[in-house]
């Protein structure tokens, strides 16, 4: 199995979906985007449960769909596995029977044993779905789709409804299984955290269009447009005007404050300024700095949200700004509403998008 490639267009009532992507090898791709964006539809189309209006899907040497040539391989003949959002385990069958369902009779016992071991659920072999917990059900569903050794695995929100420790354990087990079997996977999620934590590749699907696909870090570093940036969790987006440009950099005025940023393409003056909370550091106001950061803004803390080991701080620098820092730092700096601090933003961290 060398590569996977697809290009599909689908119409469902008012909703239209247009997506294309390709990869080689066995990466884990996260298909990410807000709810209602068409992710499940795309997954089902790749699985063969829905027919695209127009498009082509090839897996290795096999052409699964080619509307121009009238080719459509139905789901049951595609070497593609699908893990459903609700698990969809067969309630009247044991775990063993479920997992072995897609295997040829001769291979069944061996495959079942191997796959159960791979997912760490050998002990559950003779239990029934109604006796299992959420995390266990998910593992069984994954095992069932992996047992027939598909050439591509699709997963629809596999972490939905699981608590954090269960998720961590499951994502570890899943990654290991996929890596051992060298099976590429496409994983749908609407949760930013899941998308950003797991995965080698990131595909952003918004409003029925696949906006950007590529390696995780390349997408995160260079979101294609504002909507993608927003979807990826850029917290601060404000309007600004470019004052001047010089050698690839530019000065931008945002609500009376000046920032130094990398100049965007084009010559427009009106821009949207996007800053990720992760890229904002805080320091006390007295420090006279001599560092590389060019953007130091006086800020007042308006509110503080605690998130485990991190703290999200909302500031007013003349415009609303969010910073994500460690709890330790927050305590050391005395971050409470009303405190006066300085926000520090690296120039490359300020993303400008031309406004039309």
């Amino acid at each position: 199995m060398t590569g996977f490639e697809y290009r599909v267009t689908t119409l469902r009532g008012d909703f239209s979906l247009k997506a294309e992507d390709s990869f080689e090898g066995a990466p884990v791709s996260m298909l990410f985007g807000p709810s209602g964006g068409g992710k499940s539809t795309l997954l089902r189309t790749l699985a063969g449960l829905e027919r695209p209006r127009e498009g082509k899907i090839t897996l290795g040497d096999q052409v699964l769909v080619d509307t121009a040539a009238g080719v459509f391989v139905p789901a049951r003949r595609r070497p593609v596995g699908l893990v459903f959002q609700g698990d969809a385990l067969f309630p009247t069958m044991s775990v063993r029977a479920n997992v072995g369902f897609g295997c040829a009779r001769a291979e069944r016992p061996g495959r079942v044993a191997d796959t159960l071991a791979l997912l760490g659920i050998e002990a559950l072999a003779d239990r029934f779905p109604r006796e299992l917990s959420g995390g266990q059900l998910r593992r069984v569903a994954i095992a069932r789709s992996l047992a027939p050794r598909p050439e591509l695995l699709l997963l629809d929100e596999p972490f939905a409804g699981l608590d954090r420790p269960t998720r961590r354990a499951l994502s570890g087990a899943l990654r290991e299984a996929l890596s051992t079997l060298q099976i590429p996977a496409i994983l749908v999620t609407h949760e930013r955290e899941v998308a950003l934590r797991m995965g080698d590749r990131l595909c952003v699907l918004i409003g029925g269009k696949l906006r950007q696909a590529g390696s995780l870090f390349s997408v995160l570093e260079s979101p294609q447009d504002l909507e993608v940036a927003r979807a990826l969790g850029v917290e601060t987006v404000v309007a600004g005007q470019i004052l001047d440009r010089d050698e690839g950099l530019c000065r931008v005025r945002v609500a009376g404050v000046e920032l130094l940023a990398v100049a965007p393409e084009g010559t427009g003056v009106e821009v949207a300024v996007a800053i990720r909370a992760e890229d904002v550091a805080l320091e006390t106001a007295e420090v006279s700095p001599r560092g590389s950061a060019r953007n130091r803004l006086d800020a007042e803390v308006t509110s503080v949200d605690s998130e485990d080991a991190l703290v999200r701080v909302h500031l007013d620098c003349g415009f609303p700004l969010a910073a994500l820092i460690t709890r330790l730092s927050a305590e050391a700096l005395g971050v409470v509403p009303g405190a006066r601090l300085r926000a520090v933003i690296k120039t490359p961290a300020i993303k400008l998008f031309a406004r039309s």
Partner: protein
Amino acid sequence: MDLGALSLSLKLASLTTACLLLLGVPFAAWLAFRPRRLNALIEALASLPMVLPPTVLGYYLLVAFAPDSWLGRGFEALVGSRLAFSFAGLWLGSMIYSLPFALAPTLAAFRGLDRTLLEAAATLGAGPLRTFFRVVLPSAWPGVLAGAVLAFAHTMGEFGVVLMIGGNLPSETRTLSISLYDQMQSLDYDGASHTALLLLAISFLALSVTHGFGRRGAR
């Protein structure tokens, strides 16, 4: 108690139920899993006998299968006897009259299935037959059985259609319900009350069984 009538009724009900299972289950599967715009119309037609007065059904059967009609000739060629005054005629009447009773619970059970289960089976390489026997039936069998039991009980108690087309021939078309009618006319109230009690017990048995399976299916 007319044992001949009892055995005739049992024979008729068993044969009708067996045939309805054989034909009705695929029909219900076809209606449930291959939705088409025509489905509503087909379902209405199949359910029609439930609201149709039995005498109307009997009348139309007699007219449609009159000895000189092509339906009647075909029936005689296939089965060896005419529709009227024969067990085969009762069987046909019962098939039509009890069809909705067999169909409704089966159809409901099939429709109540989680569709993603069927899709999951497809992604795992199962064709329609394998999916039906390994995924659909194991979950839906209470509904199928309820349909069979209802069809059986309904046929046991059938009166109007049998009266219209049967002719009250002992050992051939005198079913238990006709026998009861006869006993009333003979003023044989003892016999009548035994027969009535038996029919009542059968209906009650059928209901208990279907309720038991209804609860099982809901779990």
